[in-house]
């Protein structure tokens, strides 16, 4: 049984790390990062079989790919706490000569990163390739890929959406961060996405739903998707609140890509318990 309290306490530290990374360099994307903290903690601390000594090929391991690379602060914090690289390195986020780049990249050799992302819409295709390679290799582990909901507006997303069921990629799990927000405003106003469920079902996927800010539910649905082998890829439509955990950032696109001031940072950190120790600034 998963220790949900423990996972939640890790997620609280991850949220502190997100705020502090973005505050220190006065740059980056806190909103989506906060919203996805529970998901990434669930994946790396409960659901996935993975090895922080890091082998690019991930033989015999579950894999997570971040397609919406702008939420790098959550990815970095989770990877660091999971043991991929020193937590202290988070202090170099977005600064010159760092491995902790603005968007995740393989170029600087940061352990845990398997594909560069930042230009949206490309992750699901890469995940299809990894899922196919696993099948060719007789490796039954699962490939998870996360995209934003705004990101689903990219045409390439729908090329992958056709490809995965056609190729019966049953070991592929696509998670959509359905927070209803993107840079220029609510997705509903910028470019309506309609029902993900209807669309992905029509393309031949199994569709599941979860509240991505409810740890117990997130763990349960992820494990179900991970175990499922029925000839179809799985799409999880995951409701989250952008900015989850910091009241003044919650539910608005204004915190998609903005750094908090010193005062705002204090207020934010007061709402998030320090559970594993802050990285030194």
């Amino acid at each position, binding site marked *: 049984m998963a220790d949900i309290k423990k996972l939640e306490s890790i997620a609280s530290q991850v949220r502190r790390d997100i705020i502090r990374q973005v505050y220190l360099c006065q*740059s980056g994307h806190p909103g989506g990062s906060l919203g996805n903290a529970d998901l990434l903690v669930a994946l790396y601390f409960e659901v996935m079989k993975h090895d922080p000594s890091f082998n690019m090929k991930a033989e015999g391991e579950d894999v997570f790919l971040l397609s919406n690379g702008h939420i790098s602060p959550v990815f970095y914090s989770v990877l660091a706490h999971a043991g991929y690289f020193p937590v202290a390195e988070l202090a170099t986020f977005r600064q010159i000569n760092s491995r902790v780049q603005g968007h995740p990249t393989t170029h600087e050799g940061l352990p845990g990163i398997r594909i560069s992302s930042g230009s949206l819409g490309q992750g699901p295709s890469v995940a299809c390739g990894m899922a196919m390679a696993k099948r060719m290799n007789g490796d039954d582990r699962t490939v998870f890929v996360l995209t934003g909901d705004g990101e689903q507006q990219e045409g390439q997303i729908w090329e992958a959406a056709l490809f995965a069921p056609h190729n019966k990629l049953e070991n592929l799990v696509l998670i959509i961060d359905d927070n209803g927000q993107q840079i220029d405003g609510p997705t509903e106003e910028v*470019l309506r996405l309609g029902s993900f469920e209807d669309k992905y079902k029509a393309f031949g996927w199994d569709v599941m739903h979860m509240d991505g800010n409810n740890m117990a539910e997130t763990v349960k649905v992820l494990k179900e998707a991970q175990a499922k082998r029925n000839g179809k890829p799985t799409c999880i439509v995951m409701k989250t609140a952008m900015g989850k955990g910091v009241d003044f950032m919650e539910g608005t696109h204004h915190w998609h890509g903005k750094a908090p001031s010193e005062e705002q940072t204090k207020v934010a950190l007061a709402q998030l318990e320090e559970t594993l120790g802050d990285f030194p600034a």
Partner: protein
Amino acid sequence: MLSLNKLQSTGKKATRDGFGAGLKAAGDKHDNVIMLTADLRGSMKSEDFINTYPDRFIQCGISEANMMGVAAGLATAGKIPMTTTFANFSTGRVYDQIRQSIAYSDKNVKICASHAGLTLGEDGATHQILEDIGMMRMLPGMTVINPCDYNQTKAAVQAIAEHHGPVYLRFGRPGWPIFIPEDQEFVIGKALHLNEGSDVSIFATGHLVWHAVEAARQLEAEGISVDLINIHTIKPLDEAAVIASAKKTGAVVSCEEHNKYGGLGSAIAECLSKNHPTFQEYVATDDTFGESGTANELLDKYGLGIKDVVAAAKRAIAKK
């Protein structure tokens, strides 16, 4: 006639602010100017245009390829569409859509690209395109313009609205010195002579024009006479201006916030090797991706600083 002492910074604004101001002016004059964006409206500093002409603003969402096609369709019906997003998503992301639906189809689309080069800073290499001038320059019929400050960008937007044919207009994110006189005429394809000199020719485009101006001041103080030329239009290149300057000085430096392959330096080398072979030094990135950092840290680290222009000029002269 401009000269170094007339080129003083009167404050800082981003070239993308110049885009916003130019777009509003072009929109006032031509009621068929349309702005499109792909979920980056806030970054384009165009609220003035959007609020004045809400019916001429099209939000495409995060769908750049579709945006390019929609622009081609609007142009077919006689509109003057200006697509806006970051330079990477304006070019590499949509190269074939531009190639087939815009360039090959002869459409009057203006591809307006912000956050070009290293100076977008902290977002890092995925967003810092250093290959876009090369890609766009390779397309038959494409005009390629990289203005150097707020005033020049504002003037360039108005000029491209008057010009018929596809244009790639490249500008940037950071606040940058404003030093081109506000009333300076902008002529597509015509180099702007910034200083008359005889020892070395410095050809510069985009943000690096300011570095070239500052470098020229230092060189002149050391007794080196600099022929300083702003190549805002990289294609079509003002070959007559390039050849005349190279003939006069016999030593050439090119300066750009772009890879050394395919950009302004390449354009000048192609022109001179055919017409007047001249030793040339490149101030450009050295076939590398960028990284996160502040604009000025990155310009320094990647060899695009003022001191790099000074050193390149001395190397070029030493080879004469």
